[in-house]
């Protein structure tokens, strides 16, 4: 299936490029599909393909020696993963797994290097993508250092709430725990606390944010 120009146009890597440039880049892009639970990148192994999520959701995570999982990012449509090993060399810093059926668009390392050499603005875009990634990691460290668990849960809910029902990532309590660096039981307790405070409502498989402003205050987000 041909990669859509509109999709490429919306990617931060290729922001600001004209249609001719995008058509030229499109020949390097290939499609890959994966099912829920399929591993797309293994921590510690080399990787030479940069992936953009076209549809579905991918989690980027590390696993400790005793099997504990820490999710670093939930990669949503329009976002990329494998950036660091592809751009900087070396091995994957994290593993990546499909959280449901996903469609990916991939570019091989050598082709990406060709694109950057031919179109220097792409290089500036890459710097911006990596800068945002650093900001995200600093925010993660800040959360672990300064926020209590309920505050982290509140922040995570705000971050992953989606206005259009059905589009956002669906997260288990275990995945939420792995994202905010705590135990599943603590997530369950925090959700109950937030529900008691009236900021959220648990509706079977939906967490409804009933009072966004109050949740923002609990999350310490201004």
């Amino acid at each position, binding site marked *: 299936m041909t990669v859509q120009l509109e999709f490429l146009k919306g990617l931060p890597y290729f922001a600001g490029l004209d249609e001719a440039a995008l058509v030229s880049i499109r020949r390097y892009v290939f499609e890959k599909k994966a099912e829920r639970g399929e591993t797309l990148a293994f921590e510690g192994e080399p990787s030479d393909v940069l992936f953009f999520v076209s549809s579905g959701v991918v989690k980027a995570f590390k696993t400790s020696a005793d099997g504990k999982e820490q999710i670093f990012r939930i990669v949503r449509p329009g976002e990329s993963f494998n950036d660091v090993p592809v751009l900087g060399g070396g091995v994957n810093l994290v593993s990546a797994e499909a959280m449901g059926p996903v469609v990916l668009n991939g570019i091989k390392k050598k082709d990406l290097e060709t694109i950057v050499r031919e179109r220097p603005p792409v290089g500036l875009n890459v710097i911006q993508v990596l800068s945002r990634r650093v900001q995200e990691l600093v925010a993660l460290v800040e959360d672990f250092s300064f926020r209590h668990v309920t505050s982290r849960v509140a922040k995570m809910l705000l971050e992953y709430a989606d206005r259009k029902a059905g589009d956002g990532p669906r997260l288990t309590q275990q995945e939420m725990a792995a994202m905010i660096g705590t135990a599943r039981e603590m997530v369950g307790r925090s959700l109950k606390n937030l529900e008691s405070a009236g900021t959220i409502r648990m509706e079977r*498989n939906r*967490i409804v944010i009933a009072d*966004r402003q109050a949740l923002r205050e609990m999350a310490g987000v201004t």
Partner: protein
Amino acid sequence: MNEKPVIDQEKCQGCGLCVDICTCGALALAGDVVELCAADKCGWCTLCELVCPYGAISCPFEIVVEDEGSPH
């Protein structure tokens, strides 16, 4: 009520812990694996997910905003 817990039958070892803990009567063992025998009864308590030693059951939540657009 279309949403159902996700059961990975390759991971399921048929230990039956989830069936024992399910207070809704939504799960049953079918041979060596568990299956959702009455999805409409599932109350999404997530105890099955919690108790499964093999990570074979997932109860994912959708996160939505109710008061989007309201004045705050």
